[in-house]
Structures are given as C-alpha cells and as structure tokens.
C-alpha cells in the first residue's frame, strides 16, 4: 500500500470517527454525572432528521444544526425527567428514547416530505461543506490549473500530501469535534463545575452534603449530552451525507457507547478509541486494502463486529479493567 492510499483511508477514518467522537463525549458527560445513557443513538437520529429538515427549509446548515441540537435536547430532557426527577430506570428510558426517535423521524419525514421517510437532498449552503485550510491543495487550486485534484495531490511532496489530504478539506464540524476533546478535558478536570460533575457520578450523597444540587448537576450533564448528540446528528445528515435517510445512525450511538467503555470514561482516550473504531469503519468500506497488505482475505462482517467484540473483551476485564463511575445508573434519593 502506498502512502497516498494510507492517507485516504485515514482521511475516511477521521470523517467516520467524528460522529462517534461527538456521541462518545456526549455519553461521557452523562455517565460521569451518574446517568447511564443508552439513548445516544436516538438523540443522534432525531438531531440528524431535524437538522436536515430545517437546513432544507432554510437553506442554512447552521440553522439546521440549531434545530438538531434542539431536538436532541428535548429527548435529553425526557431522559432527565425519567431518570432524575422520577428516579426511573435509566436503561429503560434510554431504550424508549431510541424507539421514539426511530419512529418519530420516519413519521415526521413522511408527513413533511412524502419521500418514503427521507428528506430531499441538501445542496450548497444547506450543507456543511469541506473547508480548505491555507496552503492546502484543494478544489480551488485544481480548478485554477484545470487539472483533476487527485493528480495534483499525487504530484505533491509527502508533507503537502499529508496536509492536503488528511488535515485539510473536512467540514467545520470535524474540527469542532476535535476541539471538543481538550475542551471537555478542561471542563471536567480543571473547573469547579467539572469537579462537582465527576463527584456527583461517584458519590452524590457527598455532593448533596456539600450543599450542591445533585438534580441541577445531573440535568446540566444531560443537557450537555443533548447538545453534543445534536451536533453529531447534524454532522451525519448535513456534512457526512446530504440529507436524512431512515435509521441513518446505523448503530453509531452504540459504537460510541462501546468507545466510551473502551476509553474508560476519559476524554483523550475517547479520541483514540473513536479514531480506532472510525478506522474499522473505513476499512469495512475498503476490504481490498487489507487483502493487499496482509494477503489475508478479511471478512467485512468481522470488521463491522470488531468494535463490539473489542468492547466485550475490555468489559470482561482481560485487557485492563473498565470501571464505570460508581453511582452511574443509580437514581439519587435524598434522605430525610
């Protein structure tokens, strides 16, 4: 395999890792505060639909993004109502949210657009288009000399290839997602809010004793989770693809959950886990590459299942133990 093919595979990995990363960090906030969230998938799906629909109506991807975030936050509030206010079963609430999103998106799409549960294709400013970083070879350069872009990149030196192919040319949401990693780290480990948020996931009674509201903190975490799921969903339908199709999240919410366990609930590890799972997804699209490199025919089904298998192995504690926040999944009951 030559250098350029490697870069192309990595480029696809980054694109596919972005929604995983956003959803994974979303889950990280929620679970760090002690609220288990298996409804990431549903929140992403709802956001994907609403951002595509609003981007289509308004012709503006940013308005679409806002609508997507709004939709995901509404579902997050339902989860908060069920798991914090009414102290219900957080897992069951997550399951309900996934089905609610799966059903409602198709229902709404059919009722608004009548295209069999999809939105019309998005064009131009209704999508988040790739941005070219300075000094990178992109479509503008190719148009200037009137030659195909792939040819120009193939002739460039390796550093320029690396910069143009891998670093440049993503949509703004990709860079935003990457920035969310240090931002999350800073928020969780360097601010008072973060300290309290982590504490409420480990020992809510202690936080309560200190006079800090457990309910408020958990709602804050759940809403942050909604915002990030919203961005993840909007990325799927307005950046990665041009429009919403039924069930377009395709299990990404659960891969993100797997990545979260793989990363042991830490933001920087989450980045690596999501990039790894993104690489698996990229290779699933190009099984010929593995065959060329290793000479072994690898089953695409195996590649697809690999994130799940790895997560089970990690959960089993054979390769480093994954210990969730201590109070996660348990509703907090204030004693009187």
């Amino acid at each position: 395999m030559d250098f350029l093919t490697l870069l192309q595979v990595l480029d696809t990995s980054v694109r596919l890792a972005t929604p995983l990363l956003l959803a994974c960090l979303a889950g990280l906030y929620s679970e760090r505060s002690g609220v288990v969230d298996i409804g990431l998938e549903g929140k992403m799906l709802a956001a994907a639909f609403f951002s595509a629909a609003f981007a289509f109506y308004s012709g503006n991807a940013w308005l679409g993004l806002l609508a997507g975030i709004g939709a995901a936050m509404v579902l997050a509030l339902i989860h908060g109502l069920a798991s914090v206010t009414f102290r219900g079963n957080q897992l069951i609430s997550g399951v309900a949210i996934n089905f609610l999103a799966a059903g409602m998106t198709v229902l709404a799409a059919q009722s608004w657009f009548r295209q069999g549960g999809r939105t019309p294709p998005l064009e131009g400013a209704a999508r988040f288009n790739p941005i070219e970083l300075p000094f990178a070879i992109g479509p503008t350069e190719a148009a200037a000399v009137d030659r195909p872009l792939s040819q120009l990149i193939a002739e460039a030196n390796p550093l320029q290839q690396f910069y143009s192919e891998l670093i440049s040319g993503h949509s703004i949401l990709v860079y935003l997602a990457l920035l969310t990693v240090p931002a999350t780290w800073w928020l969780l480990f360097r601010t008072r809010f973060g300290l309290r948020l982590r504490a409420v996931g480990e020992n809510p009674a202690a936080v309560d004793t200190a006079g800090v509201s457990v309910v408020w903190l958990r709602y804050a975490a759940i809403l942050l989770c909604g915002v990030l799921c919203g961005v993840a969903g909007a990325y799927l339908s307005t950046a990665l693809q041009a429009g919403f199709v039924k069930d377009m999240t395709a299990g990404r919410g659960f891969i993100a959950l797997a990545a979260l366990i793989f990363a042991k609930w830490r933001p920087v590890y989450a980045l690596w886990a999501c990039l790894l799972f993104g690489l698996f997804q990229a290779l699933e699209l190009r099984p010929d590459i593995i065959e060329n490199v290793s000479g072994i025919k690898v089953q695409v089904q195996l590649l697809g299942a690999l994130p799940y298998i790895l997560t089970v192995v990690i959960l089993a504690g054979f390769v480093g133990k994954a210990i969730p926040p201590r109070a996660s999944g348990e509703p907090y009951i204030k004693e009187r």
Partner: protein
Amino acid sequence: MDKMPKWADIVLIPIISLLLAAFFSALVILAIGENPVEALKLMIDGALMRSAGWGYTLYYATNFIFTGLAVSVAFHARLFNIGGEGQAMVGGLGVALVCLYIPWPHWSLAILGASVGAALFGAAWAYLPAVLQAKRGSHIVITTIMFNFIAAALLNYVLVEWLRPIGAMDPASAKFPGATHLPSFQDMFSTADTPMFRGAPANVTFFLALVACVVVWMLIWKTRLGYEIRAFGQSETAAKYAGISPVRITVIAMLISGALAGMMSVNTTMGESERLILNSTEGAGFIGIAVALMGRNHPFGVLLAAILFGFLYQGGAELALWTSIPRELIVVIQALVILFTGALDNMVRAPLEKVFIALRRRNV
C-alpha cells in the same frame, strides 16, 4: 403495609400508562393530519374483525410471547436482557440447521427438534454475557447490546458464506424440506365450506407459546429454582445469606431467557418463511421489553400484552396500507409504552399512591 392494594399495582397502573401512551399516540396521529378515531377503527377492522386479521395478530403475538417471557424471566432475577434480538437471530440459525440437516419424518417431530435447536442456540448466545456479568461484573445490558450487533454480523456471514444456495443472490438459506413445514391456522381450522385464517402466517407455534407461558409460570412460582431466582432478584445479599449462589442464578436465569428468546424463531423461521432470512426477528426482541413491562413480568400479563402488541402490529400494517400513516407509528407507540410503563413508572405511581393513602385515612 403496602401503600396500594395489589390490584391497583397489577391492573390500574398498566392501564393508566397505556391510556397515557394512547393519548400521546393520538396526538401524533393528529399532528400528521389524520383522524385518530378513524385510525383506531381501521386498526380494529383489519386486525380483529376478520379471521385472517386474527391470523396475523396471533402470529405476531407468538413472537412477542416468547420474547416477552424471555425479558421477564431475566427481570425476575433483576437482570435486564436487552439481547433478545440477538438471541432470537442465533436461535433462528439453530432452527435452520436442525431443519436443513436432519431428515425429519413428520412436522410434529421436527418442531420438537427445532425448538431444542432454537433454545440451545439462543441460550448459548446468552451464556457469555451471563458469565461475564456473574464472574467479572461486566454490565449485562452493555454486553447483550454488543452481542446483538455481533449476532447480526455472524448471521450475515453464515448466510452469505455457508447457507446460501449456490447461485442464489439474496442472503438466505435454502427452503426447508416439506416435512418440516408447520400446519398453519388455515390448515387446522378451515373446513371445505368455511375457509378460515386465509393466507395468515399464524401456525401451530402459537400453542407452543401458550405452553411456554404455563411452563414459565410453574418455573417462577412453583419450583425451588424459581423461588431462588425471585429471591435473588429481590435482594442479592439476602439471597447470598440463604445460600443461593449469585453466579449460578445469574447464569441459569440468562440461559432460560436466551432459550425463550431463541424459540421465537421457530415461529418466524420454521412457521412463516420456511427458510432462514437475514432479518427474521424484525425487532421482536426489543418489543419483548415493552411486553414484559406491560405484563408486569407475569406470564398471563405477558400473554395479554403480546396479543395487544400483535394487534398493534397488524393494525399498523393495515394503517400503512390504507392511510398515509407509516408503519413506524407502531414503533412510536411501543416507545411510549416503554416510557410510561417502564421509565416514568413513578410519575404514574406516586400520585396514585397518595390517592390511596388519602382514601385509607378517610376510612379510618
């Protein structure tokens, strides 16, 4: 003393939750510009007013009985088996292998063999998550979710690489031999003059599901093992003091749960499609969660809830046929039922408890 009489817990709360779910579903139907009353009429006409409608309703109900029982057996041990979908998929593989590679003389023997195959394969798929939960503390919800996806990949692989007949395009096994075809309700109840259940997929597996309800009821409430499962579910520490091994109960409860989920595929794979197809479960494993929650984990409740969901499924298909309401309406209703009977249980329960306490005070 209990805050509420038992009947309120068993009957009143599920009914209130169901009404809430129905109310929100009606709002959804209104929002997409259709008439909820008309829609309900259409659903009842299509699912309950003709024998063929009942044939579909009971066919779906058969699936939901198995998956509902599967979830509720696990719930009794306070385990949330969300992997019914995967266990049913792998159970389907068991059915296919039994039907394809054993020359059965008659369907009555074949259904026994297929049930054993389905139960063994389904239980095997639940075994690893169970052991990991019991011995290594890996959360069973996460592992069973992962196993659902692994099952889908496995089934895809097996169908494409092994079971697909040479030259066939779609990922499905060969047709099962004629001797394994199960009698449908049409075969059993039609007479020459009055055709009944025409074309409907309901088959003899429905009675197998009824037997499963009775067996599960006996197991949970009339046997020592059932007592141990319930005791473990009520309090793990108390169960430990009583000499009940948590590892043993976790594994056994999950094996039974997986076996029940797997047996669902006798109905779909052997009874309906008569070959193994990629998506034979169609989400029935997840509907088991709603069915178990509504049925309050009691086999009789599960039976009623399964028939209700069978009705919703068949009625939803009729709606999709005659109106602009897509089939996904059922998914929304299912979500609302899970939300109100499961996650928001306290929202319904707390005010009701207050009412009962107030009533009791007045009487005293």
